[in-house]
């Protein structure tokens, strides 16, 4: 069975939690005891209907305030696919949580209240989805019941959204008219929208083609851990363990190790079950080489004819994730990129992006919590990277404050050079 990871974004009033509750409920993923607990709590809180949002709002503070604060992960399966939902809060003050949830998603689901049209928040969600290179974006135009399931209202929102989305780089954009509260077009197509000819949300999630979203061209293997059993049986074994993040590796392939630049051949690709004929993303394997060369954690195994960029200077978009400090030129931080750790300094803040209007403010002097901007970084050691748009694994990094150890920024590499 295939696995689809998707992220949802929306705020309290969009009915996002209700929509997820509906998906789980209608696909019978909600268990009796969970439902009973939610019914009990709904009654105590004086809600008129069973509040399906309570299924996903798991923390005490969230239930008290009736909001989603943090990313919650949900799981469900149909006979066709298994799904992992990263359910993220929509409000601007939780942009960092949305970025977190979206970072691993294959698809983003954005909710728009049909009565309000494309508001600032919808634009921000669409932008973040494109920034994080989520290949598929689904816009659920919600609360169709409140406009008598009118096609015109739906088309208006769709046109408005499309116009904004033209400015973004979104590969696949789909619109679905729904009512999360009543379940229209969520699992089954609704008789209330005979004019809508597309699939229900669930059907779309089951069918959307994701297999070609991975990079199977650029062979990339960041070395994670060196396996050297101290046993008689495997006395001479020296294997490089890691996860394939791009391309395909086969025994006999000529490879190059960075930073040394030494070349060798793949002797075998090992797993617990034995050697395999080929390895591709996201397999976790152990690679052995025919030559005894120096390879350690943080090194990158690639092909001599297809190498990543190598350098200490990076151009990147970063999202600042903390309120405790700001990003300014000369800020020094720890950087984690693939399996490599280094220190880095912000050498330039080129602009701050207004996530609502996409306006670039070149006079900005700092990035604060939830702000996104383009920076130049200089690292203490060379990194081996690709553009984020080409490879999410070799194009992403996080920045960590060396004093507090907090993760303070998420970065997406745009290119090399100062």
């Amino acid at each position: 069975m295939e696995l689809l990871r998707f992220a949802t974004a929306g705020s309290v009033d969009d009915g996002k939690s209700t929509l997820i509750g509906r998906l789980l409920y209608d696909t019978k993923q909600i268990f009796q005891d969970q439902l009973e607990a939610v019914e009990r709590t709904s009654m105590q809180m004086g809600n008129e209907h069973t509040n399906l949002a309570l299924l996903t709002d798991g923390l005490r503070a969230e239930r008290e305030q009736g909001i989603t604060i943090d990313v919650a992960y949900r799981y469900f399966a149909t006979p066709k696919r298994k799904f992992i939902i990263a359910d993220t809060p929509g409000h601007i003050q939780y942009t960092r949580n949305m970025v977190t949830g979206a970072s691993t998603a294959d698809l983003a689901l954005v909710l728009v209240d049909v009565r309000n049209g494309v508001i600032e928040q919808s634009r921000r969600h669409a932008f973040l989805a494109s920034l994080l290179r989520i290949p598929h974006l689904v816009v659920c135009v919600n609360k169709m019941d409140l406009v008598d399931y009118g096609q015109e209202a739906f088309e208006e929102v769709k046109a408005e959204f499309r116009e904004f989305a033209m400015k973004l780089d979104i590969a696949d954009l789909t619109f679905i008219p729904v009512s999360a509260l009543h379940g229209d077009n969520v699992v089954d197509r609704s008789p209330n929208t005979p004019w809508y000819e597309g699939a229900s949300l669930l059907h779309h999630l089951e069918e959307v083609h994701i297999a070609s979203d991975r990079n199977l061209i650029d062979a990339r293997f960041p070395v994670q851990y060196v396996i050297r059993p101290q046993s008689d049986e495997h006395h001479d074994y020296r294997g490089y363990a890691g996860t394939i993040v791009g391309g395909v590796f086969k025994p006999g392939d000529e490879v190059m190790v960075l930073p040394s630049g030494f070349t060798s051949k793949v002797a075998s690709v090992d797993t617990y079950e034995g050697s395999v004929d080929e390895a591709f993303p996201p397999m976790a394997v152990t690679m052995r080489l025919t030559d005894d060369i120096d390879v350690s954690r943080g090194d990158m195994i690639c092909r001599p004819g297809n190498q990543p960029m190598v350098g200490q200077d990076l151009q990147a978009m970063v999202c600042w994730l903390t309120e405790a400090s700001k990003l300014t030129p000369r800020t020094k931080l720890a950087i984690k990129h693939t399996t490599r750790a280094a220190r880095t300094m912000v050498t330039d803040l080129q602009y701050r992006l207004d996530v609502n209007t996409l306006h670039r403010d070149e006079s900005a002097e700092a990035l604060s919590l939830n702000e996104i901007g383009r920076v130049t970084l200089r690292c203490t050691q060379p990194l081996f990277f690709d553009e984020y748009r080409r490879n999410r694994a070799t194009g992403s990094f996080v920045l960590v404050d060396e004093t507090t150890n907090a993760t303070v920024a998420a970065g997406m590499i745009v290119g090399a050079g100062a």
Partner: protein
Amino acid sequence: MTTTYELSDLDQVEAESIHIFREVAAEFERPCLLFSGGKDSIVMLRLAEKAFSPARLPFPVMHVDTGHNFPEVLEFRDRRLAEVGARLVVASVQRSIDEGRVTEETGPRASRNRLQTTTLLDAIGEHRFDALFGGARRDEEKARAKERVYSFRDEFGQWDPKNQRPELWNLYNGRILRGEHIRVFPISNWTELDIWEYIRREGIEIPSIYFAHERSVFERDGMWLSDSDHVTLLDVEEVVTRRVRYRTVGDMSCTGAVDSTAATLEEIIGEVAATRTTERGATRADDRVSEAAMEDRKKEGYF
């Protein structure tokens, strides 16, 4: 043969878990794998074996022993760890009681569940563990649904759900100060059904109490609890013999059995796929204390 270069859902979560094990082994000085003998920790042990094969586990395995264990599980633990060649560390709740670190609860509903937190945190301090692998899954419970893969704990072992480190892509931040530690949950993204399907696929042995068997039980709070020296019966409670199995393995005093005739893995998977209650809701008195029972215990440093 042509290949589509696709991994099944189970292979994908397996690969993710192996990646996490290796990342921790590479970045921490003193990791440790928590092992209860339950199905999740058994799967964890297999994943750890896979991550470092053909070498042995580069860290010890720790069992927090409440003294109220199912004998079948203890026997299983010792045999399985010997096969893997893993070093076992036992953190004993009884010892914590004897040393006056915790006070045993009294009354018929007394449980050592909450006491384990002190025993666990003491052991972490004593052995100076800086990363603990736990087998918690996000589908188990709503507070766990919010937990990171690397879950930061301060010097008091506390979890602060409102101030968790953002966790992006598969870039985990393992930086800590002395005395702090990280709880690592490699099987965060597995579901209960995944665990069972994996056990079947891999042919992994599990303790016998997971399969239907005759047992002397009594009913309490809608669950079948095993009659043992560790529980005191209330006047109204009556011991009967029933055909049951366990869906989770915890302390004998608070883990309930469910009526079942499932004697094989196939039958268990059929039962899990069709069941309408969560494993913790059905079988764990420790989670029923309140809506936020798990969140509250986790904040204190529970698993």
